[in-house]
């Protein structure tokens, strides 16, 4: 076993995906000396290592990169005297006093003290159980992300004739990926009346390959005792209940699920952080600090992002604030609380401070055309089109906020009245 690491760090970052890597950069900018990134995989990069398609980095690097390229650039930027990356190592537990229990392939059992902690554990995929699809339980039903890992990293195929349930981006990306691999992708079935992935992915991943997207439809039964043999597909009514009288069967050997992501918050709940049921992540201040002082969160563990560039931006800030706290600096605490209002599914952060520019990320509940977004009574912005698949990013100038004190601001989106 290798020689032990330090027993104290200024900032310990849990997760070495794009969020964790950017947080390390941020902490270094704050001027701290000892930063540790811990990741359970054998290399840093997180989910990006398996996302081999291009579409990353347009904002951050002003260049369209593939996932692995984006990750590798970041890892190079992070590598320095101040930052250690500990891979093949798993953070088991964090105590309220910020002691971390880590088990590591290279170092064994470790206990470290951190001045501040950044949570950057990413997210996991929803599985079959969470949608209770009736039928048998054969091999060949798997999440799209697992299939992505199989194909892109392990070099095996999930099957030959593929159906996809859910039109999330991973599902769409996999439809194209498996088509390129010579698999027969029979169709994508989506419960909602609209595609839940980005339109661009619908165009370049489905339309380009002639793969049909069936909206308002779901898998009503999975057939096959050992391996998937067939699916019964049924249209759903406006209450999303399948209409079995209009169902049809599709022959296939694989069903990929792309039905949503859930922030990976086992550690956060064990720490008893205050959670936001709307995002599935912890509640944070405008400094991205959770309800436990000294613990910060960013990236997909905070709320599920669709753009890695926003992950990097958010995480740089989280890392910087965590670094500041580690060396004893404190920004004024927030004095305005922020709440999702009409048509808003979720917003991050959940509180604001008027002392500097604020960045807000939010998602709408349903597709909206020609609408106006308001925050309190002083901010207004018009949008041609808002969809749940795209996270919205807003910046608020301090001047807009200084009038509020100890108040609650609501964010609403309303359709513009016909004039």
């Amino acid at each position: 076993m290798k020689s032990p690491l330090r027993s104290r760090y200024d900032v310990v970052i849990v997760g070495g995906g794009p969020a964790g890597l950017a947080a390390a950069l941020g902490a270094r900018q704050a001027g701290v000396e000892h930063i540790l990134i811990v990741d359970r995989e054998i290399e840093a990069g997180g989910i990006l290592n398996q996302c081999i398609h291009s579409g990353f980095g347009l904002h951050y690097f002003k260049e369209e990169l593939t996932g692995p390229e984006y990750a590798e650039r970041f890892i190079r930027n992070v590598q320095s005297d101040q930052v250690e990356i500990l891979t093949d190592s798993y953070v088991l537990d964090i105590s309220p006093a910020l002691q971390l229990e880590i088990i590591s392939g290279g170092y064994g059992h470790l206990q470290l003290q951190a001045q501040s902690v950044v949570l950057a554990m990413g997210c996991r995929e929803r599985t079959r159980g969470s949608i209770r699809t009736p039928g048998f339980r054969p091999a060949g039903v798997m999440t799209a992300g697992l299939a992505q890992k199989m194909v892109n990293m392990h070099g095996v195929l999930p099957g030959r004739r593929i159906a996809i349930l859910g039109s999330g981006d991973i599902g769409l990306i996999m439809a194209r990926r498996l088509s390129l691999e010579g698999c027969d992708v029979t169709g994508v079935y989506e419960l909602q009346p609209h595609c839940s992935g980005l339109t661009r992915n619908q165009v370049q991943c489905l339309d380009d390959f002639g793969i049909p997207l069936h909206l308002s439809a779901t898998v009503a039964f999975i057939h096959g005792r050992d391996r998937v043999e067939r699916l019964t597909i049924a249209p759903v009514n406006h209450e999303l209940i399948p209409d079995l009288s209009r169902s049809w069967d599709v022959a296939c050997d694989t069903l990929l699920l792309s039905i949503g992501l859930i922030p990976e918050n086992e550690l956060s709940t064990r720490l008893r952080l205050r959670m936001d049921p709307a995002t599935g992540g912890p509640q944070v201040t405008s400094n991205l600090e959770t309800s436990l002082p000294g613990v910060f969160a960013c990236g997909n563990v905070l709320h599920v992002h669709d753009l890695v560039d926003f992950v990097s931006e958010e995480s740089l800030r989280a890392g910087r604030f965590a670094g500041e706290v580690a060396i004893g600096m404190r920004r004024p605490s927030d004095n305005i609380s922020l709440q999702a209002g009409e048509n808003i599914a979720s917003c991050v952060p959940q509180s604001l401070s008027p002392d500097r520019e604020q960045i807000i990320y939010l998602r709408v509940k349903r597709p909206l055309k020609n609408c106006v977004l308001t925050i309190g009574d002083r901010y207004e912005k018009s949008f041609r089109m808002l969809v749940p698949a795209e996270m919205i990013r807003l910046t608020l100038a301090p001047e807009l906020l200084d009038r509020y004190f100890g108040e609650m601001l609501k964010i609403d989106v309303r359709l513009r009245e016909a004039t």
Partner: protein
Amino acid sequence: MNSGAEKIVGMSYDVVIIGGGIVGCALARELSRYDLRLALIEKEVEVGFGTSKTNSGIIHSGHHASPDTLKGRLEWAGNQRWSDLARDLKFGFKRIGELLLALQPEDLHYLQLLKKQGEDKGVPGLEIWSPQRIQKEEPNLNRTILQALHAPTAAVINPYEACFGLIECAQQNGAELFCGCPVLAINQTGADFSIQTPQGVFHSRIVLNAAGVFADRVAAMVGAADFKIHCRKGEEYLLDRRLQGIVTRLIFPVPTATSKGVLIIPTVDGPIMVGPTAEEVNNREDLSTSFAGAAKIFAAVHQYCKAISERDTITEFAGLRAVAETNDFVIGPSPVKGFFNVAGIQSPGLTAAPAIATYVTEMLRCEGLKLAEKPVWKAEIDGPFRFARMTQQQRQAAILQDPAFGRIVCRCEAVTEAEVRYAIRHGARTLDGVKFRVRAGMGRCQGGFCTMRVMALLSETLGLPLTEITKRGHGSEVCCPRQDNLSVGDGR
């Protein structure tokens, strides 16, 4: 374990058990005490893959079934054996007790009847609880419950862990196990049965038929089918850890003619499970779950606990109860001498299994089988380590001894590589086999993260390519090879 690669020809035994469910495994361990050549033949790739892994995992308190039935007698006898078994075979066991709820005035009478039945059978500790007591002990149950019968003797286990432990102990004491080995035909010549399987022919003087839902078919192979099995399907829904602790005891409604009703089950590992349904089905492989089943279960549960939501489901499954026409266990000699049935083992078959094993052993003794105890018989097995249950000091020590404890394979359940390797050394051949032995893939993400890691370990240890790793045996391969050779075409 025999991989099926080499054929066994004409191996001969004193006793062959057909079927490696909880009953077959308990029989194997019990009979391994004696000086016998003993084999267990199982159709699936691992033991316990029939009904015994898809049930509620309850060691029933002992008062449910009438003492006039065989299942009623063996239920209470079996119950009392499980704490020792769990200790010796190192599997999880918690005696959490049960509450049987009276929701309607007409149920109150039933509570009294059941209490009396239990007391007559000698089940200790039965008590009727008032609504106030129920509220105090189980505050998340609905306030409309009129009364409840508390039975402290009820317990929970992981039934598949019990199967693995029992068979490992039997093997350690000399029993032989053949998995992936369906019995296809049985011929009798004189006092010898020859049992045909794809792995070869087994000879035996005595055959114990513990083939679960297929027991009547196996009996028919020797013309001993004087009973019929039909299947009663039960669906179960496992819920997210969010609801863990919402009840601390097993919650039962008043039963119906065909089932114990829909239960709330705090499983031995913590998460709550709800189920089962009871539905007659014709197909003996119909393990499908349904919209209707889910609807029934959650509607029923809402009558006693409103906090449980269908949306908390993390996985569901179905199992088949093997029900004989008599609605009781069918245990005893068949019309064919030397061929014994241990069939129709419906609920509470899990609870009763250890008692069934002793009962059958005594029966064989009465039928003239010579049972000489082995001079050395080891009741315990070493049992796997559970990283998740270790203290920090134990973890430190374990990793120093074996660095594979330092690599987490399943994040949801904190399962380490060392545990997966142990499971494979002890017979796991499939993803399900690993999952049911060490819980990798059983947590919230249901294998999203660990599947590839477990597959890689299986592939490395068994020397098979990834594409030959299965979920639960031949035909359930998880992935397939790339087809590059097919696409060379215009590659320049």
